[in-house]
């Protein structure tokens, strides 16, 4: 049995290994082409130099402090968008007329390029962390609102009827039936909001050259530290991917088994 199990696990990991191998081969090929002079090393630094630069930016550029400031900005934006988004969603869900009037507006705003408002925010809030947090906040707000509405509206009829048959008051019905039932969907909205918030926090940091990891890339690029720039970009991608993975884990943990 263990043999069969190991065979299936090998078969299952074959695609993953292929993907990883392709990545490594591509990096190796790039390295060789650059060393052979076929790719200009002043445009694409060799991967080995980028790897070395990793150590340098960690040691010299206060990466940990920058990471903390980006994380703090994301956290602040996340708390704000959760509180504001969920309560706005609940309010709209409670008053049907309001929902029917405003929901399409929220959906349209979600499709608008909100991040382009950063010059405006720069003037309103100044070149500081508040601008970055507000950019993250507004870009993550629409999904939080929409998913809250969706979650409460999609509560199963059976559950609502159970509440009715227990003669629950409206408040009890909300806290004991509707809200718990909607929680997984609400978290999907919060997760999407956090993803948008992270994208916009890092993006705004880069664009206004202030604060954490995004600004690091702008700094290094301005100094023409090519290997450092590439390394910093890889670092930011890595951090974002880990962030998404963590959010997915939490979401799976919250989702009820059905």
């Amino acid at each position: 049995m263990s043999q069969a199990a190991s065979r299936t696990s090998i078969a299952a990991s074959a695609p993953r290994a292929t993907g990883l191998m392709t990545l490594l081969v591509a990096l190796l090929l790039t390295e060789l082409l650059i060393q052979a002079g076929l790719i200009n090393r002043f445009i694409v630094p060799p991967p080995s130099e980028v790897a070395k630069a990793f150590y340098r930016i960690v040691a010299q550029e206060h990466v940990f402090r920058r990471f903390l400031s980006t994380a703090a900005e994301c956290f602040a934006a996340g708390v704000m968008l959760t509180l504001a988004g969920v309560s706005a969603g609940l309010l709209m869900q409670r008053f049907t007329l309001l929902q029917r009037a405003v929901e399409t507006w929220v959906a349209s705003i979600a499709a608008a390029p909100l991040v382009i408002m950063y010059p405006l925010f720069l003037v309103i809030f100044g070149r500081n962390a508040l601008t970055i947090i507000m950019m993250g906040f507004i870009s993550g707000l629409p999904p939080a609102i929409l998913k809250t509405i969706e979650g409460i509206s999609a509560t199963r009829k059976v559950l609502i009827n159970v509440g009715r048959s227990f003669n629950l008051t409206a408040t009890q019905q909300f806290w004991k039936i509707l809200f718990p039932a909607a929680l997984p969907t609400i978290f999907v909205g919060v997760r999407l909001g956090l993803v948008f918030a992270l994208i916009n926090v890092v993006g705004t940091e880069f664009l206004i050259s202030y604060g954490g990891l995004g600004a690091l890339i702008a700094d290094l690029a301005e100094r023409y530290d090519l290997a450092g720039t590439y390394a910093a970009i890889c670092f930011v991608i890595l951090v974002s991917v880990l962030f998404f993975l963590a959010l997915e884990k939490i979401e799976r943990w919250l989702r009820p088994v059905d």
Partner: protein
Amino acid sequence: MAETGRLRQTATAPLIGPVALVRTAIVLALLALWEFLAHSGWLYRDVVPSLLSIARALARLLSQPDYYYNLGVTAGEIGMALLIGGGAGLLVGLVLGGNRFLSKAFEPYLYYLGPTPKIIFLPIAIMWFGVEAPSKIALGTFSCFFPVALNVAAGMRQIDRVLIRVGQSFRASTLQMVVKIYLPAMRHPIINGVRLGFGFALIGVLLAETRLSNKGVGFVIMQADSTFDMPSMYAMLIVLFVLAIGANALIGRLGGIDTIKRS
């Protein structure tokens, strides 16, 4: 849903519906609040300019031939980005959607790279393609590739098996299968991918323009920013949002889907 709302709605059949009434009320309240803030003196001057000055700036903006030129530049860049990035995305999506092994090998990378902030690649884009339009197109292309590829791949996997079997039992050739079965069945995911891709390309191009450029809408916005011309900035953002939301709705309408809600 609260049932009382529905009952009340059927009972009354007024000239304008209650929804329109609420909407008008909200808009009017917001405008009044804005105008009040503009004149209150609580905020820094010009951060919240009066509605009249915004309207004037809007009229000025729309009567400038220069602005249309910049709008055209940006639209051209977005179009190119969508063409290259969307085309590549469609191709990659079809390959990944049609092959289980390749999908398992490479799709995780796309899935996790997709939502990372793309603007940070701007230094690389500038290094590779220079400071002119090509670097903006490159950033837009890179931004819109991921949503298109992922949507097409997912759409390909969701095709109803029955449709494919119908095609096979009619002995359709590969070309016929693609044209008559796959593409029509995948119309919605493709359109949805293009709609998302358009949004991402738009953001990529605009942000690249605000960071470093000498033409395009992003450049004009940064000019207004550097001269603290707030009414113009609001006017430009209004125009931009109207165009973006309109284009988004149009692409959705073309696909015949109620798209906005799905995002």
